[in-house]
C-alpha cells in the first residue's frame, strides 16, 4: 500500500481480566476506503474508540502522517483532522441540517455582534449547502428539522458534517445498517466520494457484499488481533467470512 496516513502498531487494551485487543496492527491510507470487519466481540469498536480518541490504549503506538501521536480526548483527535460518524449519528433531530453540521462549531458574526455571541447563520447555511452540493447529497431543505429527513439523508448529513471538519481520517460505524437498498446505494457512493477527496475512510460493516463493493482494502479482526488483510478486488465473501470466523487463515495482501 501507499504510505499509511494513520497507523496503529501493537495496540493492546484490557477491561479488567478481559483482553479485548491483543497487539492489533492497523493502517489506513489517504484516499482509500478501508473496511474493518470482524465478528461481534472481535474488538472493532474498541479499536475505533482508541483511534478516534475516545479511549486510550494500554500498549502500542499510533502514528499519524508518520509521527507518533496520543489523543487525550475525541476533541484532540478532531483537532488533528480525525472524525467519527457514530451509528446513532448523534444528530439533533429538532435542528436543521446546517445547524447540525455546525453544532458546537458555530460561526459568529464579525465585529461587535460576534463578540456578543451572535451567530452568523447565513454563512453557516451557505457553507453547509456548499458541502452538501459538493458531496452530491440531496438534502432538499437545509432548514427542515433533521427528523423530517429520510434515514439516508440523515446519514448523509452526518457524513457531510464529518467531511467538513476532518481532513485526514473518518471512521464510519455501520453507516448503512438502518437503510433500505436505494439509500444504501447512495450512502456508498457518498463514502466513495469522501475517499476521493483524499480522506482515509475506515468503514465498519457487517455487510460483506457491501464491503467488497465500496472498500479498497479489508482488514479482519478476530479475538483482538488483525488476522488478515486483503485487497477488496482480490477477495471473496467466503474468504472474508472464513477469516472472521477462523475457518481460514488469511494472508496479508
Amino acid at each position, binding site marked *: 500500500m501507499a504510505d499509511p496516513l494513520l497507523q496503529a502498531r501493537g495496540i493492546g487494551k484490557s477491561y479488567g481480566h478481559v483482553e479485548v485487543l491483543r497487539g492489533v496492527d492497523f493502517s489506513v491510507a489517504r484516499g482509500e476506503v478501508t473496511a474493518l470487519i470482524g465478528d461481534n466481540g472481535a474488538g472493532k469498536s474498541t479499536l475505533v474508540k482508541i483511534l478516534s480518541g475516545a479511549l486510550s490504549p494500554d500498549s502500542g503506538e499510533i502514528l499519524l502522517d508518520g509521527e507518533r501521536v496520543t489523543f487525550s480526548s*475525541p*476533541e484532540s483527535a*478532531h483537532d488533528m483532522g480525525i472524525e467519527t460518524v*457514530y451509528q*446513532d449519528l*448523534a*444528530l*439533533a*433531530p*429538532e*435542528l436543521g441540517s446546517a*445547524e*447540525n453540521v455546525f*453544532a*458546537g*462549531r*458555530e460561526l*459568529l458574526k464579525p465585529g461587535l455582534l460576534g463578540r*456578543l*455571541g*451572535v*451567530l452568523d447563520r447565513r454563512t453557516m*447555511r451557505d457553507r453547509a*449547502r456548499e458541502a*452538501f*452540493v459538493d458531496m*452530491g447529497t*440531496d*438534502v*432538499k*431543505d*437545509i*432548514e*427542515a*428539522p433533521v*427528523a*423530517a*429527513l*429520510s434515514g439516508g*439523508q440523515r446519514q448523509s448529513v452526518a457524513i457531510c458534517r464529518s467531511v467538513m471538519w476532518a481532513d485526514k481520517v473518518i471512521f464510519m460505524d455501520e453507516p448503512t445498517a438502518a437503510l433500505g437498498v*436505494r439509500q444504501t446505494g447512495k450512502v456508498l457512493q457518498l463514502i466513495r466520494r469522501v475517499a476521493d477527496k483524499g480522506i482515509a475512510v475506515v468503514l465498519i460493516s457487517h455487510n460483506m457484499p457491501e464491503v467488497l463493493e465500496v472498500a479498497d482494502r479489508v482488514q479482519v479482526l478476530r479475538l483482538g488481533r488483525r488476522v488478515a488483510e486483503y485487497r477488496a478486488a482480490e477477495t471473496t465473501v467466503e474468504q472474508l467470512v472464513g477469516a472472521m470466523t477462523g475457518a481460514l487463515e488469511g494472508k496479508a495482501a
Partner: protein
Amino acid sequence: MTEIPASAAPAKAADETSGAGDTSGTGSAHGALKIAHRSPLRKFLSSSPAYMGLVLIVLVLLFSVLRPEAFPTTATGRNISLDISVLLVMAVGMTYVMVAGGFDLSIGSVLVFSGVVMAKTMSAIGGDGTFVVVAGMVAAVIAGTAWGVLNGVCITLLKVPALITTLGTMGAALGASQIMTKGTDVTTVPNTLLKITTSRPLGFSWLVYVAVVVALVGGLILAFTRFGRHTYLVGSNDESARRAGINVNRHLIKLYAISGALAGVAGAMSLTRFATTTISGHATDSLQVITGVVLGGTSLYGGIGSVLGTVVGIFIPAVLQNGFVVTHVQPYWQQVVIGFVLITAVYVDHLKRARRDRS
C-alpha cells in the same frame, strides 16, 4: 379548532418547495439535486407561536366585539399587562429550561423566598432611599440564583430528575420563607419602593417595562446567539451536544441559574407591586408559567420553543380571564377553558411530531 388546519402547513410548505423546482413534477425525494430552503415567513406561519397568536387575536377581537365599551380600553390593557408581567419574567427563564429539555417547578416558591429576602434585607439596612431598595433587589436576585444553581447541580451532577429536584426545592424554598417570617407576611417596605409602584411612565407600571426588557433580551439571546443555539442542542439531543464538545452539565446549571435569577427578579417585582411578601399567593405560579410556555409551542421534550411563543402563551389565559370578567361570564371558566386548550395544544404538537417523524 383553528390550529388543526394551520398545523398541516409544514408538510404542505415542504411539498410546495420541492414541487416548484422539480421539473419531473413528482415532488418526490428522488428528484434532481436541489437544496432549497423554505422562506422564513412560511416557516414562521406554520409554527405554534403563529397559530396561538391567531387564537390570541381572535380572542381579543371576540371580547372587543362583545363588549366594545369595556374590553378594548386602556384600563384593560393596563390590567392585563400588569397581571402578566411577573409571570412573563419567570416564563422567559422557564422557556430556556424547557427548550433544554428540563423543568422547573420551584419558581413560585423561589419568587416568595426572594421577596422575603428582599424585604428582610431592606429592613436590616433600615431607613429609606434608593440604596436600600437597590440592595434589596440585588439580594432578591442573588437568593433566586442560589436556588437555581442548587437545582442545576442536583439535576446534572447528582442526576436527580428535574421534576423531583424542583418539587423538592419548591417545598424547601416556601418552608424557608415561612421560617424567616415566622409564617406572617412582611408588610413594611420603604417608601421609595411604594413610589415605584405608584409611578406609571406613559401609563404603564414599571413592572411592565421590566417584563418587556426581560422578554426582549431573553428572546434575542435564545434565537440569535451561540448560547441560545447550545440550549436547543442540549434539549434536542444531549449526547449530540456532548460529542460536539459542549459541556452539557455546565450549560444546564447556567439555565437553572437563569430561571432562579428571573424568579428572584419576579420576587422583587411582586414585592414592589403588592408591598407585602404574599407568601401564600404563589402556589400555582410555576404551573401557570408552564401552561403559558407550553401553549406558546415549547416542547416538553426539549429542542423546540421560543420566547415569542411564550409571550403569546402567557397572554392567552390573562386575556380570557379579563374577557370573562367584562362579559360577565364566571371567571372560573378561564381555568376550565385553559385546561382543555393546553391539552389540545400538546395533542396537536404531538400530531405534528408524529407526522414529521414518519417520513
